[in-house]
């Protein structure tokens, strides 16, 4: 199925290759490099490239292309999903998935790839099972290994493969029993010129870090489970119970895992006139104009919080790709700092925290190329921000209970809202 895997960095060098069947020459990647050269942006490389004898299916994550070489007909979604799983595993093991991290841990990477695929077919992909086969490197373990001579490879047959619950190994023991849940929502919005919302969607996840002894059975209930309409669960969740009672009941895997991911959109499934479920937490007042015949343009931008339930909007970063004709921008920011890169025409404004009493603004003029005509494309403004202690969809966890074990665990829930693709057109 998957014949070989090449890891290519953004400058077009293969820095790792792995073959599961016969060795495929590196020259097969020339087709990929051709496409890479043709693409103006790194992310514009098409994910599927046909070559005379192979197909190249690639995934771009963390500025690394994971290029799978395919020799026969395969379901493309399958391969793409698998490649993402590989990247997720690397990230899980090394914390970051960069070229340097992969090169540093090249031996672990080879071992992982060897375990994840056999003869090109997926073998063990569940992170908990892999972690029993190959222990992830940590600073502490690296030190211990050098002293005691043990290694990061498990010497036992993974018990997880034999336990009744495939995602949890048996005999887990902790001195501090804790379960943490992070509700993280990313809001994707496009707002048009006049300030009305074109699309608004929330992509939410609940990530869990569960360190509990034994075989705990958890139930998690929400204040407003109706919000969750378009949901996908970790395989541990008992779906029947969710359908009947809207309660999440599960035996958790050990360690970090994604309990569920969901999607709340502004338009699907609700009757016309129903209040949109997606509240927009930030508003933007903008006035970006270029006059015909003059070499000056006006730039005026003000940000303000909206529907944030009293929580502060933090880590605000505004970026905008100004038209090509703009030579320089002479602006003044009421707070934070701004930079304008005259080569890429990228304006970035690091705002920081929004103070509702004194709204941050960025005002001033832009100088245009002398004699050039008025630019006809309007820049769009991309905003990033974070809101702590709030899930913008209004999702709230009601309670978390544990059955099956005697001790009292420590429980914690954290909410966070982030801007995903938050874009304002001008």
């Amino acid at each position, binding site marked *: 199925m998957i014949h070989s895997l090449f890891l290519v960095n953004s400058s077009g060098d293969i820095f790792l290759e792995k073959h599961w069947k016969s060795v495929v020459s590196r020259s097969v990647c020339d087709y990929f490099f051709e496409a890479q050269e043709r693409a103006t942006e790194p992310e514009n490389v*098409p*994910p599927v490239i046909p070559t005379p004898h192979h197909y190249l299916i690639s995934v771009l994550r963390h500025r690394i292309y994971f290029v799978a070489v395919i020799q026969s007909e395969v379901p493309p*979604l399958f391969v793409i999903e698998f490649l993402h799983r590989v990247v997720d595993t690397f990230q899980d093991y090394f914390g970051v998935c960069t070229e340097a991290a992969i090169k540093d841990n090249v*031996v672990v990477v080879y071992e992982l790839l060897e375990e994840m695929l*056999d003869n090109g*077919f997926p073998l063990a992909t569940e992170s908990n099972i892999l972690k029993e086969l190959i222990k992830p490197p940590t600073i502490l373990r690296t030190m211990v290994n050098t002293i005691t001579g043990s290694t990061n490879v498990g010497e036992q*047959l993974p018990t997880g493969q034999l336990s009744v619950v495939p995602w949890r190994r048996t005999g887990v023991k902790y001195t501090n029993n804790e379960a943490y849940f992070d509700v993280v929502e990313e809001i994707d919005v496009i707002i048009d010129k006049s300030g009305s919302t074109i699309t608004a969607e929330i992509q939410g996840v609940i990530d869990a870090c569960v360190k509990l002894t034994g075989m705990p059975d958890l139930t998690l209930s929400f204040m407003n489970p109706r919000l969750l309409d378009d949901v996908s669960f970790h395989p541990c969740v008992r779906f029947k119970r969710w359908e009947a009672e809207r309660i999440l009941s599960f035996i958790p895997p050990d360690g970090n895992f994604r309990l569920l991911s969901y999607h709340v959109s502004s338009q699907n499934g609700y009757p016309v006139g129903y209040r949109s479920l997606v509240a927009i937490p930030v508003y933007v007042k903008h006035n970006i104009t270029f006059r015909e015949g003059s070499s000056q343009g006006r730039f005026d931008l003000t940000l303000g919080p909206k529907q944030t339930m009293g929580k502060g909007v933090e880590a605000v970063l505004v970026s905008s790709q100004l038209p*090509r004709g703009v030579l320089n921008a002479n602006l003044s920011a009421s707070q934070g700092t701004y930079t304008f890169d005259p080569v890429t025409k990228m304006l970035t404004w690091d705002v920081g925290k929004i103070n509702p009493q004194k709204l941050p603004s960025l005002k001033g003029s832009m100088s245009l190329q002398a004699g050039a005509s008025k630019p006809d494309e309007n820049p769009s403004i991309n905003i990033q921000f974070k809101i702590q202690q709030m899930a913008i969809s209004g999702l709230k966890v009601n309670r978390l209970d544990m059955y099956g074990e005697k001790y009292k665990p420590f429980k914690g829930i954290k909410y966070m809202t982030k801007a995903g*693709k938050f874009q304002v057109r001008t």
Partner: protein
Amino acid sequence: MPYLGGEETVKELRRALSNPHVQGDPLRHRSTVLRVIRVMSQGVDVAGLFSEMVKACATTDVVQKKLVYVFLCSYASLNPELSLLVINTLRKDCQDPNPMVRSLALRNMTNLRLPSLVEYVQQPLTAGLRDRAACVRRVAVLGWAKLHSLQPHADIDAAVVNELYSMLRDNDPVVMVNCLRALEEILKEEGGVAVNKAIAHHLLNRLKECDVWGQCEVLGVLQRYRPHSEEELFDILSLLDPYLLSPSVPVMAATLGLFLSLCCRGLPAVSLAALRRAQAPLLAACGSASPEMKFTALCHVQLLLRSLPGLMGEHYKRFFCGYAEPAYIKQRKMQVLVELVNDDNVGFVLDELKGYCTDVSPDTAQAAISAIGRIGRSYSDQCLEILTGLLGLKQEHITSVVVQTMRDLVWVCPQCSESVCEALEGCEDTLQDSQGRQALLWLLGVHGDRVSSAPYVLEAFVEQVRSEMAAGVKTELLTATMRVFLCRPAETQDTLGRLLHYCIEEEADMNVRDQALLYYRLLHCGIEETRSVLQGRRSDPSLGVLIGRPAEPVSQWARSFNTLEPLRQCNAGAESAPQAAPYHLALDPEPSLDLCDPLNPSQDRQETGEMAALHRGVAWDQHRAHEHQDGPAADVPGPSSSSRPVKVYHLLVPVADQ
């Protein structure tokens, strides 16, 4: 890769590996082996260490074994004789009490991929099939597939195949799936695993035990099964139903693929219902965080729309493009948007597309303009307004695509020609590329009577004909000037004379010269003769106003669902579209009308482009004239020859499908 000090490093490692002190100390021995692997991954040729590494394999340390196996599998093919030494150790490991060691040894034994070792591997593999531990059986099963790929022509041992078939009933789901995979490979020539009723039902019942990858595999294999009765079919369908809403996109797609293959022949209604049900998960996949996943989902949405046009009409906003999305996704989304347009949303969609027309990337802008042109076939007034507005921007690449789009639009919607002719005035100054100018010339030629400035624009072109590089533009210019001459002779006569003189006397390109000669002789035959040859149709006679799109039966595309096919088409469309027209100038266009597939935008855009480029009556006449004068092309069959349509079909199709 040149690596400084590579030889030194290898020498030093060899010394370390053969040092008895190192060999005696397991810790040092292992770290030396680790260094070998590290150096190997940096691209140094460490093949010279093979014999030392073979010795290092004989150890009780599992980790060291793993590392040595990585080395051996990479270099075994260079040292087949020495590899024989490893086999002994490996075979001993296959007897180890630890199942992990057994599976490791078995896996690597088969990964050496040396045909000379096959006889030594077979016995442990057979034993492995009956091992107690599931993980050893998993490896052993796939091992047979690897052996088979080493000797693809050797006879298959029927006993092994039977054993593998019986192991489909293994307790471990992964063993079961691996059996399927192995049998698929071994029995490839016979068409893969034979799925009878018992096997199919067994697989279906075990489906929920498998992981997502296994489920995809099983669902794929089951596509080959044909239920015996309708009752059985419906039982299977209701069993599969929950998987249609699986959170894993690959499983969902595989299930839908199976649904379609099961019922697209006999039960089109059921397959349509399945498509409707799969709509929600597919839409969710279109909004997935991974652009690659998004792209693939979009391609499959396009397939769905072929049978259920307007299915996702109310979700059109989901297909609006984000600013930072990759160009390939934007282009696909626009193609989907074109399909989703209806009376309610046409205004919104056009507004949105208008915004993309000024995109920084010319490719995206082009795709947006072509999309507007496509929508213009049903909503011509609104679209023409936008297109005319775009001409006002005087941007080179935008104007070029707008003119091409207008040309294609006029060909199918003759009612637009009035406004197009008005809009054309003055845009010749902004046009730089040959495609755009060809389109402009065609429009001027065909509608020369309505564009008041036509003769003067042509005159300007003729004055610069010496510096013109593209032969396509020159032939187009010849035809256009001839046509304008026919309707406005007084204004054009002088220009035409100069052009013909230049083309016949000075032109180097044979095609252009031949064409000029042809026109010159044609003019000698008299004006009526010329008119009858040159004034072809101005629009496509076979098309009326489009009222809705015809729905294709699902069976047309069911086979290509969840394969690479739908992803391929886009690449071909994008790459070959710009070069399509000039190469096919010498074809008779009419048969190609039948090929025009209004539901596949990429293919269609390109073909209509071609059609318009072709449909100028030129090629046809050229052949006829050559026949008259016994010119060099006299052996080309005439238009009446019955073989032509077939030939054209063959010539056109590769362009669309490559």
